């Protein structure tokens, strides 16, 4: 288990390094993700301990963004003033995104 955690940290650190010195416009962890993905494709399988650690972290992904989300207390007045407009924008946007993605998939898949 510790082995898997160390491997994930190494890819995270590599991603941070690449982000700092080569591709500053892409967040380090995303570069770590891409590097790990390339490693997995080359290796042809997911190391068992990495799979265990990764799956348990992802299973509780929601927990990890609670600390940042609690910062909403700092924005309550401005959010309240814009509550209806923000809700309308969020609803319209998610409906349109599902519709465009699924609609296009359906049309493109039929052509094959």
């Amino acid at each position, binding site marked *: 288990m510790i082995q898997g955690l160390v491997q994930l940290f190494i890819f995270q650190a590599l991603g941070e390094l690449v982000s700092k010195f080569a591709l500053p416009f892409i967040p380090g962890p995303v570069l770590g993700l891409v590097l790990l993905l390339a490693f997995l494709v080359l290796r042809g399988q*997911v190391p068992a301990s990495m799979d265990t650690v990764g799956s348990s972290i992802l299973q509780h992904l929601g927990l990890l963004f609670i600390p940042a989300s609690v910062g909403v207390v700092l924005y309550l007045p401005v959010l309240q003033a814009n509550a209806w407009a923000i809700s309308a924008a969020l609803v319209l946007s998610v409906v349109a995104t599902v519709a465009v993605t699924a609609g296009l998939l359906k049309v493109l898949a039929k052509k094959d």
Partner: protein
Amino acid sequence: MNNPLRSDLPAISEIWVYLSGSPLLALVLTLSAYLLGLTLYERSQRNPLANPVLIAVVVVCLSISLLDMPYAKYFEGAQFVHFLLGTATVSLAIPIYKGFASLKGRMSVLLLSLVAGGITSVLTAVGMARWLGVDESLVRGLVAKSVTAPIAMGIAERVQASPTLTAIFAVSTGILGAVLGRYVLDALRVKAWWQRGFALGVAAHGIGTSRAFSVNAEAGAYASLGMGLHGIVGAVLIPQAVGWWF
């Protein structure tokens, strides 16, 4: 003779001062609020409206205001949880890699739909918000809201948006997508599980993905692929797009 136990026992307020000075209080608060959220979510038969993160955020917000604890103080302790976001982002490579196996040559179709969906997400959210006169400080928080929260917050930092607002909008988007997605898909008569799942993953990231998994395994696998790919593509393209649009 004085009872040593008594005289050494610090007043409750002193224990309080000690605890709130250490990261423990914020950590315990965060983890137990999340556990409460998870329990309520399970009790509601995994109703997306009873989202565990949303419940936990409300509970923590109420608790820290009752305790009169400033957010900065709370975050000082909770940052140990926050730190793992980067590690979680890296781990997203695992479900993406596993999803590759079931692709069957659909990659170009998926990528095209993903990019179209991603652009739609940003344009409609920002366009609608501006049209309705939403405060400009909030509008930036909308650009990455369809991307999975850990990546969205990384993008937010690069486009001078608030990671907090982005996380809140991302969670709301996930819940809305999980609740409304099936009606949109039914209206469009999209029947293939892989198409339904992928669209949910692109539009509503992790929360849409867990919804897709609870309906159908193939839909779930494609949803996590959609979420992961949207994260990568979004992290590369969104900061560029924001550069010339804002």
